[in-house]
């Protein structure tokens, strides 16, 4: 091809995968503490748009799926079905201790967690609740993983 143009375009697209991150948030039975912190990370004070983040309302447009909550019996099927609707490549980021261990809800009859029973978790942000800074750090890590995943798609 002319000046390796196709290669350059592919590289630009790979590069863009880590610079444009659209977030979709699933509440899998969270106590709302982590959800507030996620929203706080998007406010002008913490300014997640610096990383190219934008909150999107549809799982079809998501690049990073944020899951909070210990995955309750009621939300398990919805979580699995919503994750199936997200186009590849995407990153699953769990926010808070609940999705990765069950936290104080561990052992309850109504809890079907942790999330990695159902799908591979890329980044896990621990804390009850994690600070907005920690969530931002998690998103930044996920951005690097996204780029690798996008590369893996055509290599």
């Amino acid at each position, binding site marked *: 091809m002319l000046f390796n143009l196709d290669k350059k375009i592919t590289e630009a*697209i790979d590069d*863009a995968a880590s610079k444009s991150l659209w977030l979709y948030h699933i509440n899998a039975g969270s106590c709302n503490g982590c959800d507030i912190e996620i929203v706080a990370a998007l406010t002008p004070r913490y300014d997640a748009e610096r990383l*190219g983040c934008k909150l999107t*309302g549809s799982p079809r*447009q998501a690049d990073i799926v944020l899951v909070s909550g210990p995955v309750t019996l009621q939300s398990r099927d919805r979580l699995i079905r919503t994750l199936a609707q997200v*186009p590849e490549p995407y990153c699953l980021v769990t926010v808070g201790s609940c999705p990765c261990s069950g936290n104080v809800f561990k052992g309850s009859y109504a809890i079907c967690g942790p999330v990695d029973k159902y799908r591979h978790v890329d980044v896990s942000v621990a804390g009850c609740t994690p600070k907005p800074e920690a969530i931002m750090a998690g998103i930044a890590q996920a951005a690097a993983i996204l780029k690798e995943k996008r590369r893996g798609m055509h290599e």
Partner: protein
Amino acid sequence: MTFIQTILNILLLPGLAFTLIASIWLAGVDRVLVARMQRRVGPSLLQPLYDVLKCLGKETIIPRKANEKVFLLAPVVGLASVLVTAMFLPVGGVSALKVNSDMVVILYLLTLASVTLIVGASASGSPFAGVGLSREMVAMISYELPLVLVMLTVGRVCGKGLATFSLSTVTAYQAANGPLLLNPVLWPAAIAMLFVIPCEVGQHPFDIDEAETEICEGVLAEYSGRPLAQFKMMHNVKMYVMSGLFCAMFLNISTGFILADILIYCVACTLVTFVSMSVPHAVTARFRVEQVFKFYWTVVTGCAALSLILVWIGL
């Protein structure tokens, strides 16, 4: 020679390449300005380009309920129609395509772009898209009337007794008599046009059809991957087309040097984007559907009609 020149005009300067660069620039400047007005750093200037490229690199999911052909073709037609619209805009007095009544053509092509959104949404078979497309229709009904009234007003002023629908006549009139924005009779029309721009583009306070927090992105609810990239690019190009249309109708300043004219045009487009899109985005929350409808059919149409009446009785 003229044939080659026309091809170059369509592909390079007032045409395709210029349009794409200008629309990425305007969309990026808009996002950075909104960020700065909210006292944050904001994304990089190239963020709209990254968004579009990223969407190109993602998987395209076609829902089982969707009509596949219409679902995939609608964004292509939409993007093509706004790109063709941009060809009619005079950049430094030169436009890539010229017809006798290009304002009417622009009007129809802009409507076509909105119609493709509606068609694409209805083909995706999602209830959220259904709500979104009904809202998009309300938005269209809201801004079409004032837009036509503004065009009639400008055409009447520049047509010398008759209403002209030719953008080249309008720009020629402004080259001879100074920009129309200096004429106080046309200020209400200019204000109406500034309000039409964000609603036509679907920018924040008037983005009732894509309200992500209420109806899951509305018309775009089922779109992902390549068709989504086309719709996002259509949105960016629409931003440029609408600010370019305002500049052509009200702010055409010509110095005689084509490069200076193009530079002035770019600065004017950026200013219009700032005033009509970034400021409302930064300072207001989203309107409700009936608020948009009411606002456009009273205040904005009133402004446009006031100018039209003043111009028609010969002030």
